[in-house]
């Protein structure tokens, strides 16, 4: 009875992941049931991007260090998972010079994904410890340099990546169900990490690293833990993406993707898991909505010349506006959650006729 109460109490103060995942789950189920091929593709990519954005939030949001290396780890995860999931015949066609010990390996999808994620985490663990000693601009530039290094290695390690050429013959395993399952699972992981002692210490070090160090927090260590988890998630997202698109080159894991994922997080709000989710959903649907407007206008011939680049320009303007009025993103560092008053009023709302308060409340500062 006591433990049950404790769990209930804990759940009451941690409603965020549930509030975030229920609408997403609904979206996935509805799209799977009623959506066409196109909508299924868009929502599948939405969940893959969600994995990437949440992974970025785990480190960037909690440590306050802008992480440019994230997409590099996505690339590591993508290439590694593919090496394990492809059939030996496909590998022989696309990677003729592959190391002999890798050639016969053929694992199912999920173990391959996991290996890809672990490979990314391993690289992050090896290089991260030294990098995590740096802060502020130095850290940002070093992480950017790390992205360049990973990219250069991917481009030139032809034996396993096919060099700058496209790697093809990957099986299409990433369905909407799979990407939605992991997207939602990782909402919980990202949220729980934030609430763990390590996550709390990391956030303390973000707000004031000297104060944090003075009360005995090993700043380098907690940053390192966040960095490795973040790379793990990036590697996982990379694997999902690779098995969705089925052919790709190292250029897919470079600046364009970096800015796309980064903008989703910044727009939603770096400091919270809710921000990551909202940012991903908002940017994805804005982009698709604008693209639909652009395409319908072009097909209907509303303008003499085609409306080229409308999506990009309009999206950018919207993003600028959002950031002018909300410099720390739509949600900032607030989480979407129910306060105890909300919970009480929900149970009591049948008797009273006062409106149910908004579910968005200022999060407690820890």
């Amino acid at each position: 009875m006591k433990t049950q109460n404790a769990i209930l109490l804990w759940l009451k103060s941690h409603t965020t992941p549930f509030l975030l995942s229920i609408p997403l789950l609904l979206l996935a189920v509805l799209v799977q049931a009623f959506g066409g091929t196109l909508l299924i593709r868009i929502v599948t990519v939405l969940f893959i991007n969600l994995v990437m954005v949440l992974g970025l939030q785990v480190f960037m949001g909690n440590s306050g260090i802008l992480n440019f290396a994230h997409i590099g780890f996505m690339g590591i995860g993508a290439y590694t998972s593919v090496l394990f999931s492809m059939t030996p015949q496909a590998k022989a066609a696309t990677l003729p010079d592959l190391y002999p010990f890798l050639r016969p390996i053929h694992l199912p999808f999920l173990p391959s994904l996991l290996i890809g994620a672990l490979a990314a985490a391993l690289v992050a663990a090896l290089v991260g410890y030294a990098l995590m000693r740096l802060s502020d601009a130095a850290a940002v530039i070093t992480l950017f340099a790390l992205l360049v290094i990973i990219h250069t290695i991917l481009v030139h390690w032809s034996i396993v990546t096919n060099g700058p050429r496209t790697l093809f013959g990957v099986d299409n395993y990433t369905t909407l169900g799979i990407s939605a399952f992991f997207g939602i699972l990782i909402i919980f992981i990202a949220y729980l990490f934030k609430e763990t002692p390590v996550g709390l210490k990391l956030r303390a070090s973000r707000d004031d690293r000297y104060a944090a160090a003075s009360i005995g927090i090993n700043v380098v260590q907690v940053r390192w833990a966040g960095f490795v988890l973040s790379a793990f998630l990036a590697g996982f997202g990379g694997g999902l993406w690779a098995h969705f698109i089925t052919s790709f080159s190292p250029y897919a894991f470079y600046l364009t993707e970096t800015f796309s994922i980064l903008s989703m997080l910044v727009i939603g709000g770096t400091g919270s898991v809710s921000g990551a989710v909202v940012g991903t959903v908002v940017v994805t649907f804005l982009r698709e909505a604008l693209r639909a407007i652009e395409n319908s206008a072009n097909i209907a011939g509303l303008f003499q010349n085609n409306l080229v680049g409308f999506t990009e320009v309009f999206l950018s303007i919207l993003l600028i506006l959002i950031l002018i009025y909300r410099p720390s993103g739509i949600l900032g560092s607030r989480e979407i959650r129910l306060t105890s008053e909300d919970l009480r009023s929900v149970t009591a709302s049948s008797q009273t006729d006062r409106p149910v308060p908004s579910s968005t409340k200022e999060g407690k500062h820890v």
Partner: protein
Amino acid sequence: MMKKQLWSFTIVLVLLSLLLTACGGGAATQAPQPQEGAVTAAPSTDSDKIIIGAAFCLTGIQAPLDEPALRGAQLAVDVINEKGGVLGKKVELINLDGKSDPVTVGNVAVQLIQQGAKAIITPSDFDFGSPASREAQKAGLVGISPAASSPLFSSTVLGDKQFTMSMWNTTMGAAAAEYAYNVLGYRSVYVVTDTFIDYTKSLSRYFIVAFKNLGGEVMFEDTYTQGAQDFSAQLARIQALEKKPDFLYISSYMPDLGMIIRTIREAGIDLPIVGGDSYDDPGLFEAVGAEYGSNIYFTTHSWVSPDTSPEMKQFLDYYKAKYGSDPDAMWVVTGWDVVNILTKAMEIAGSTDGAAMAKAMEDTEWNLLTGKLDWSDAASGHQTNKEAAIVILTEGKPSFWGWYRPAVIPPP
């Protein structure tokens, strides 16, 4: 507090309305649109027009190739409709911007298929084009790229209804090798390969294989990296050669290609320089100028000039009538050719069925503005056995030597 709630409310409202437009837009584009000037009041417009879908990228890195190709494709559709259409129906070209993003290109292809497209034109590159081809293949439609020259763009990789109209790099390299050996009589070559992208690397590889097969001597395989902006080491090696090669094969591209050629010529080396279609760039002609722009040969896709052929002259007349100027890029011609192939394949097949069209495309010997073309069957990859246009640069001015079809094409 009130203000904050108002804010959230506004944002939600804006998002909702955009979402609704998205869905509404999607639904509207799926609805059949009344044909302009349709005489009959038939409820279904599906039967009186044939839709060709295109996923050309009008924004992003792919746009310089795809945007001119779209102009050519649209022109071809206009001309075909003026002449009465295909199978008694009008042709409609719908292009949705692929945005130089593989995921969007795939999405666009799905959208086009939902809108009833009977064939899909994909962007001119394997990375950006293949997602559209895969969707076309899934839907049983012909997919064709106007100018993707990667040997990966084949039926073996993408499926039995997928084509590229461009010669592969295999042909482009082999044509240069055979032209140099047989026509110019050269026997030895010094090769410089730009290792920055796959295109230049594979082009050199196929050139070397073909030149060695002929019995030519490859004296040295040197490398360069795009962006290095310094060719002095390679130049020193060329100057140190005891026996001079008959010519240089330089597989690189602009902007550095201009610098490379200038460096070589400034050092007083006037050996012939041979290269691939990346030389087909007015920017290069300007960069080398009259002083250094001589004795340069390259293999490319087409030669856009009224004196090439009567068909080319007619195309240029049509183009000028519609757009008011001469084509600014050779890629215009590839768009024109691709639409003509698709519509003729429909007529030969007598239907818009994907399998029948693919068969017609395989069985026909095509005479195009971009040279004669013959596809191998699906089992051997739809390899493009195509003529390369040989262009000679003299004092910075390009001139057309003629078409050259290599006798032996190296395997990809």
